[in-house]
């Protein structure tokens, strides 16, 4: 009940965030502009549009998660609204979880809006909007939930700017875990090697969620893989929320 109350209020608040509309505008513009790239790709237009549209949903969704998420708890402290909330008979983890769920609802709404918009666009252009499309969209949402979890964790321990830098770095590294696997070999005998190796095991492999290229190219992805990737994301997200709750538990506000 209390978690849901915080979640609904967070959703209501986040919907008013101007950055959300700026990012949604650019996402929509990118999806629409994908047709231009389609023209120069010799009969591959629908494939290109599908590819770019889902990539735009993923990237702009992540930017929303990062820029709104890293502000989430910090803003409550900065605006002092947190005083009257945490002095109520509620557990602190309920507050953190409520903030997360509110943003997860918002990300769900924006992903749904962008996803269904892109699906309609694809359908009008003669593309196949099938179960594979929605599976690709679902895994994008799972990835965004994980990024949201990391953003909320950062929001409990650091400033929005530093938090956003850390989450953006993790986001890029998460899409390039292969580099983290190869790079340590070049740093033998230094601390950097251990740091890079540790980063490989700590940073989630966000590439696991990207099956939109398979969809765009008509390559079938087994349902079991989708379920595995979703579970992978869920485990990471729960861990991040656990750390956020622990970090926030004893924080002086």
């Amino acid at each position, binding site marked *: 009940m*209390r978690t849901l109350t915080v979640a609904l209020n967070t959703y209501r608040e986040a919907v008013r965030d101007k950055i959300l509309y700026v990012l949604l505008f650019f996402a929509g513009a990118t999806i629409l502009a994908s047709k231009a790239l389609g023209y120069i790709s010799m009969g591959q237009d629908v494939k290109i549009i599908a590819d770019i549209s889902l990539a735009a949903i993923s990237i702009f969704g992540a930017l929303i998660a990062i820029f709104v998420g890293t502000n989430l708890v910090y803003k409550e402290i900065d605006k002092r609204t947190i005083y009257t909330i945490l002095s109520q008979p509620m557990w602190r983890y309920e507050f953190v979880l409520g903030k997360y769920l509110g943003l997860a609802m918002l990300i769900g709404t924006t992903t749904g809006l962008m996803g269904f918009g892109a699906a309609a666009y694809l359908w009008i252009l003669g593309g196949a909007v099938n179960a594979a499309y929605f599976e690709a969209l679902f895994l994008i949402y799972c990835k965004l939930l994980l990024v949201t979890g990391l953003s909320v964790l950062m929001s409990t321990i650091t400033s929005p700017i530093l938090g956003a830098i850390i989450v953006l770095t993790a986001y890029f590294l998460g899409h390039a875990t292969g580099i983290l696997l190869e790079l340590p070999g070049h740093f033998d005998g230094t601390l950097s090697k251990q740091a890079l190796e540790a980063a490989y095991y700590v940073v989630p492999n966000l590439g696991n969620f990207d099956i939109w290229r398979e969809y765009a190219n008509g390559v079938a992805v087994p349902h079991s893989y989708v379920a595995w990737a979703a579970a992978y994301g869920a485990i990471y997200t729960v861990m991040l929320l656990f750390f956020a709750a622990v970090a926030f538990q004893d924080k002086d506000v």
Partner: protein
Amino acid sequence: MGAKTIAIETCELHKVYRKHLGRKGKPTLAGLNLQIFENEIYGFLGKNGAGKTTTIKMLCGLMKPDSGSARILGQKVPSRDARKLVGYLPENPYFYEYLTPKETLTFYGRLRGLSAKERAREWDRLSLDLDLRDIADQRVRGFSKGMRQRLGFAVALVGNPPIVILDEPMSGLDPMGRRRIRDLIVRLRDEKKTVFFSSHVLSDVELISDRVGMLVNGRLHRQGVMDDLLATRVQLVEVVARGLEPHVAQEIARTAFRTRHSEESDHFSFSDMDQANAAAAEVLAHGARLIEFSPVRESLEDYFVREQVQVEVGV
């Protein structure tokens, strides 16, 4: 008379804020011991930075002490059970700007675990008590300081907690707003609640507090019943007499430190109660009328400044 029940108790509370790079600063609280009884209004005084807000935040579960402990009606602080017993008004309260007072109270009612029926009842009660009905559907964004304070008060009272903790409730309010808050605090005591509040508006504290505590350098420097603290310090005694013979008036004026003669009466100011008593006896003995005999006691502000200066010069 039975022993008083302790509503709020702190034991050796210590808190040091860390500066940059984890370096420890000066202690904000350096072993604070407090006892606030049930059904009293306790004014918590101190200069800026004395540790009042830190203490209040600890009692409300927003901060943890480095060491020491606190209890609210026997419940350990911080704990959910202790927070159930407390209503809190922070200094300059902030609420979600896009909510209306009705939505705000609903939000806090939900956080307190009230049912829909209880929330509706609380709105009826508090909107009437705090005059929120006319602004029920206006967004908080456009509220004046006084309106926000009233809403903050209502939020602190949602769920009818037995203990109300107020941090600078009169700060920035006009005389009407201050009077309204004072009346509300007194009404809370009449409703058998305990009120613990900090304020820099010492004239208001003096008017409504049963007891006050003065925090200096993170410790409780003085504490006591208002009348006991101030009654012992009579600054001057004003004696006004009518119908005095001029020679008697001159005689009395010798011991007074200030005199004033008007057409109808003679005014004498004494710095000493015994001298004032002797003067009053003289007036009556000569068949004149004693119009006024009023000891002017030290105000809380005078007391506060005097104590503060003594600490600073190391007396």
